[in-house]
């Protein structure tokens, strides 16, 4: 005999009530009228001195009624061997979703995670539909429903376990939202195997560290289906994490003491014990460069540091944070290129020391910066021009008539992305200029200028002038032109007018050629022609010209693990060739010629792309959100409408629940309580009859006594 609700048996303790009432001598039956109570005071009821229970039979009946009632409430049943095998339990559809994001690289989280995943697989019933998926930024199948359906339960479990064991945490960020939405899609899209029954219960088991930095945005617009439950199996790291992230360069130049500096933010978690960290530079061979700087970040705070690059001409790979228990997010990789040696080719015959010639000013306009050194190379117009790549020689200035073969070389240069600046210092140069720009300049002659002329119309949106577009810089009225070469306008259809003189004659004309361009100045900058070389606008104008052919291909801080890198900016305009990308771990990815992007950025670090004989590098960093490793409150998921299965303990006690269900089923079949309640009613009837009888005999005996 077993009981479904054995606690109700405690109700039998109420038999103490009748026993005590029977012990109390409550003989006053009826009332005794008396003339006055003024001399009387109430006597408290008391137990009979001899503890003699009166009316044994009545007491027994009452006790029996109470006991039977308690017995009935305890829902007794006879345990039988009922064929309620666990395999007969309701089939479910289970999807185990394993978080493999970078934050699981902390401590032993990954082994914990694997154990939980295996536990989740063990908890599945043989007739369940089971699939295993892994996710970080995206969802990847480990064992699909289609595959698991073909396997026997035992084999399915073994295969799933072995595949889970093969998994390893990646470097990518966590996107819970996408993962959950996709998981729901996977679990819902599959038609039920048993069509005649109701829908199978659906359950997503999420094995994750449930970190705060995980993206949940996709859940916002998603309506969670009511029949899909999310069971959380969370792992938690013993120690707090500190993270390092690169901040976007502020508007002020990131230079400190003439040396470039990197702005980084160090965050420390609330429950961290470590507060003192060191920021160190590492070079390509992972050795520390220079002296590290101390970073004091109290728990729960974040600090911004500007870290100067060390002295010397060393190529840096990363800035690393030391002192943190979890190193996975402690490095910021930078693409530290060696100082670029750029050359500007000047094709002309004026001597370098002639202050009236263009070269004199050109040599002085380019200042060396931390990233690059510009060298102006004078080239005689009679000699054949040897052009390099636009990366090494972004600008060629033509201020003289050049031979036809040189024109061809220049055109080739422009097609690969170079910029050719053609300065019409004299009308005689018009022929070469026309060939270079492929424009019909018409009859070029010295313009008749009344004293001087100013620039009247400037396209400030053009990269050449965009730096000077602000109101405080765009005053060009102080630059007077005494001489310029007037060209005809009809042939300008394919060209872009960047600037005109105030009388409408073209001053600066651009013609795009291939990936590069030709720019035509109708006046020179030397004092004989104008005040341009001596104006404040000359330097920015020339720097803009230089960078026209060298756009920033990559912004290092923008790329995170998993991001696709667009290749269009580094693809040469010539016949497409294969691209090889070297990964930080030493591997090499070969991209087909028609690839437009590189998306195998699976780890943070420096990637080296090789296109033909050209090399470009870019860095990929860890997503800063991945550093926010504090556990996400489950309520947040619930706010997004996710139906979270409460209490993992409940799930763990599933066998207990099953046993309870079995008991309930047995009890429901036997329904012994009905008979017990009937017996109780019988006993109560007997009790009523006996009590009535006893009262009657007592009354009659009293009457006899009275008479």
């Amino acid at each position, binding site marked *: 005999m077993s009981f479904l609700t054995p606690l109700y048996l405690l109700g039998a303790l109420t038999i103490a009530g009748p026993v005590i009432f029977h012990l109390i001598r409550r003989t006053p039956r009826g009332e005794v009228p008396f003339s006055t*109570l003024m001399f009387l005071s109430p006597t408290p009821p008391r137990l009979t001195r001899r503890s003699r229970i009166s009316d044994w039979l009545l007491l027994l009946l009452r006790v029996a009624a109470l006991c039977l009632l308690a017995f009935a409430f305890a829902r007794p049943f006879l345990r039988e061997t009922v064929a309620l095998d666990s395999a007969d339990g309701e089939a479910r559809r289970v999807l185990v979703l394993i978080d493999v994001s970078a934050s699981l690289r902390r401590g032993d989280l990954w082994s914990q995670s694997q154990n939980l995943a295996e536990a989740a697989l063990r908890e599945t019933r043989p007739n369940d539909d089971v699939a295993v998926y892994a996710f970080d930024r995206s969802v990847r199948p480990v064992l699909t429903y289609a595959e698991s359906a073909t396997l026997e339960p035992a084999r399915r479990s073994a295969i799933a376990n072995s595949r889970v064991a093969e998994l390893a945490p990646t470097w990518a960020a966590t996107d819970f939202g996408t993962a959950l939405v996709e998981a729901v899609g996977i679990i819902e899209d599959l038609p039920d195997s048993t069509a005649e029954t109701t829908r199978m219960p659906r359950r997503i088991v999420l094995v994750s560290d449930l970190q705060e930095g995980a993206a949940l945005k996709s859940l916002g617009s998603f309506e969670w289906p009511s029949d899909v439950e999310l069971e959380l199996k969370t792992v938690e790291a013993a120690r707090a994490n500190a993270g390092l992230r690169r901040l976007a360069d502020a508007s002020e130049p990131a230079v400190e003491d003439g040396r470039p500096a990197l702005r980084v933010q160090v965050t420390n978690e609330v429950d961290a014990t470590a507060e003192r960290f060191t920021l160190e530079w590492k070079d390509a061979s992972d050795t520390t460069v220079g002296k590290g700087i101390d970073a004091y970040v109290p728990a729960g705070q974040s600090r911004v540091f500007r870290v100067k690059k060390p002295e010397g001409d060393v190529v840096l790979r990363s800035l690393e944070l030391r002192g943190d228990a979890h190193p996975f997010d402690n490095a910021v990789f930078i693409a530290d290129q060696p100082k670029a040696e750029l050359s500007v080719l000047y094709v002309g015959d004026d001597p370098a020391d002639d202050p009236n010639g263009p070269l004199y000013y050109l040599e002085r306009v380019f200042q060396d910066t931390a990233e690059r050194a510009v060298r102006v190379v004078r080239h005689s117009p009679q000699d054949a021009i040897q052009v390099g790549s636009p990366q090494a020689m972004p600008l060629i200035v033509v201020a003289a008539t050049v031979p036809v073969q040189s024109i061809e070389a220049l055109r080739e240069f422009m097609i690969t992305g170079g910029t050719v600046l053609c300065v019409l210092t004299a009308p005689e140069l018009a022929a070469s200029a026309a060939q270079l720009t492929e424009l019909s300049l018409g009859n070029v002659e010295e313009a008749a200028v009344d004293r001087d002329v100013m620039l009247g119309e400037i396209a400030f949106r053009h990269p050449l002038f965009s730096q000077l577009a602000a109101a405080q810089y765009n005053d060009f009225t102080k630059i007077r032109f005494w001489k310029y070469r007037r060209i005809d306008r009809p042939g300008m259809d394919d060209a872009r007018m960047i600037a005109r003189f105030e009388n409408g004659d073209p001053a600066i004309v651009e013609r795009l050629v291939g990936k590069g361009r030709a720019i035509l100045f109708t006046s020179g900058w030397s004092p004989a022609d104008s005040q341009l070389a001596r104006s404040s606008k000359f330097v920015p104008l020339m720097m803009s010209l230089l960078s026209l052919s060298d756009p920033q291909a990559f912004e290092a801080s923008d790329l995170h693990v998993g991001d696709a890198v667009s290749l269009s900016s580094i693809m040469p305009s010539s016949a497409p060739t294969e691209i090889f990308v070297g990964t930080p771990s030493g591997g090499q990815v070969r991209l087909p010629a028609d690839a437009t992007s590189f998306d195998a950025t699976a780890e943070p670090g420096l990637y080296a792309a090789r296109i033909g004989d050209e090399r470009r590098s870019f860095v990929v960093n860890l997503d800063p959100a991945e550093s926010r490793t504090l556990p996400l409150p489950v309520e947040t998921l619930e706010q997004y409408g996710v139906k979270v299965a409460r209490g993992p303990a409940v799930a763990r006690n599933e066998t207990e629940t099953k046993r309870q269900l079995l008991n309930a089923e047995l009890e429901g079949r036997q329904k012994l309580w009905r008979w017990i309640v009937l017996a109780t009613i019988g006993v109560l009837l007997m009790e009523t009859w006996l009590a009535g009888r006893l009262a009657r005999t007592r009354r009659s005996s009293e009457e006899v006594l009275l008479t």
Partner: protein
Amino acid sequence: MMRLAKRRNQSDATAHPSGRLAGQEAAIDPQALMRIKSLQMRARLAMEGFIKGIHRSPYHGFSVEFSEYRQYTPGDDPRYLDWRLFARSDRYYVKRFEDETNLRCTIVLDTSRSMGYRSEEHSKYEYARTAAATLAYFLTTQRDAVGLATFEDRITEYLPPRHRPGQLRRLTSMLSHEPTGRATDLAAPLEEIAAVVKKRGMIVVISDLLAPIETLKSRFGYLRSRGHDVLVLRVLDPEEVNFEFGSPAMFLDQESGKQIYVDPSAARSEYLRRFQAHAELIAKSCSELGVEYSTMTTARPLELVLFDLVRARGRSGALRGRRSALHRGGRS
């Protein structure tokens, strides 16, 4: 017949100089008496039993009291002029004998519910009204004026003392009402009696006196100060005196309806102590004021009531005799 009985009883009484009944066997059993339906008949029986037992005639000294002559003043009824004295002394004197010489007795009977208590066949009220009727009958036969006032916590009915035909009938019909009152309050009714009964006389209070007695003394004193002779007959049930209940029970106060649980075996000693203290306090108050106080249980033969009356009358009569002598002396 009456005379015969008187004589016989006189001889019996001689053998018992204590003035008590010759023997309990001679007395009428109250239970037997109460079975008689007619109250008047009961009273007569009781009185006859009494007359058998007294030593001397109650007529003597009761109705023939000395009355004084008062000089006639204009306005006096000339019918009361004593012509013989006028003949002797040639002065007009008015003889004032009727009012002064006859006893005016007012019986004040408690009709509160507590009087309805009975442990035997008849209740205290039954007993008390029989006693009242017996007294009234006795006094009427002596040509005394008798009146009746019934009270609970105030006077409910009042019949002024008269001596006239039909008075006794009216009185007995008043007595035949069943007790309806709730509480017993002695103070207010006695005050009312004092206000109503102007002429000096005798006031017989028949009650169980089961009420707070704080004000009792002052009210008796008030009556005494107006010159009344006061006789208190306390009627109690034997159970009230002995409190011999057996098993614990819910005791119900007949007046207030209040119930309490009482185990008599535990409560008896306390009850008796308090009851005794109450009784002693009443006795003390009465003796201080010269009030005749007598306690009787409903088991006591009724005719003994009359002995109490006579004894009280005798004492107060002697007292009054002395007082009137003084009074006369003062006047003369």
